[in-house]
């Protein structure tokens, strides 16, 4: 076999194990991950409404989980997923419209998304609890 015909095993790209994570790539996959989490979350939301239409006794079973520590943690996590997906989704809509493609802009909008979604999660708790 001549050298030219020998199969060459070049690394495939993107090779995630050796690929340094960057803000842009991390936010990209987080958008998917939070999207999947929210898809499950909206099923839970539909279930909540169905339980609310049932008897108080049945609803109490459901509400017991919601008000537990685990339930509150899920709500906090769900809210963060929601705000992140919301903010990053708006970032995507700007890209769809043709804006913000420069590397500098993509990083700036990425950090804004991280900051705003973290802040919005905290603020929604403060506002929600103070209005409750």
């Amino acid at each position, binding site marked *: 076999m001549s050298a030219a015909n020998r199969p060459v095993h070049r690394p495939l790209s993107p090779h995630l194990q050796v690929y340094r994570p960057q803000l842009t790539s991390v936010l990209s996959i987080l958008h*998917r991950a939070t*999207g*999947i989490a*929210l*898809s499950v979350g*909206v*099923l839970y*939301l*539909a*279930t909540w*409404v*169905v339980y*609310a*239409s049932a008897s*108080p006794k049945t*609803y*109490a079973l459901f*509400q017991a989980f*919601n*008000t537990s520590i685990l339930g*509150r943690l899920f*709500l906090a996590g769900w*809210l963060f997923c*929601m*705000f992140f997906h*919301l903010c990053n*989704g*708006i970032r*995507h*809509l700007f890209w*769809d419209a043709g804006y913000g493609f420069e590397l500098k802009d993509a990083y700036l909008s990425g950090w804004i998304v991280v900051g705003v979604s973290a802040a*919005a999660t905290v603020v*929604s*708790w403060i*506002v*929600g*609890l103070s*209005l*409750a």
Partner: protein
Amino acid sequence: MEDRRTPLARARGLGSARDGLHHWWVQRLTAVALIPLVAWFAVSLVMLSGADHMAVRAWIGSPVVMVLLILTIVIGLHHGQLGMQVVIEDYVHGDGWKLALIVAIRFIAFFFGLAAVVAILRIGFGG
């Protein structure tokens, strides 16, 4: 939004033969619709997280909330189903599994959506 190809591309018969553009467009349309809905819903959810059954029913049953909540759940399910379809198309490689999962998420979304709408109307109209 049925056809956004240039006249030249159309004349040459270029572009997708399927419905990718429609999927893409509806995903964006539902995304824009969800921006205000989801912001409203997030705050409401935290407010209600400690509420009892009566308070939750009173909230769901008020006319404005009924409309907004139905919109949030139905559009949210639709947007989620479109997104999950893309995830499945990207990561599930067997054609059979791919089709089965896409059909399954459609059925699940439809079932949960209808169940939620019926429940909301039942609460609102005192059934």
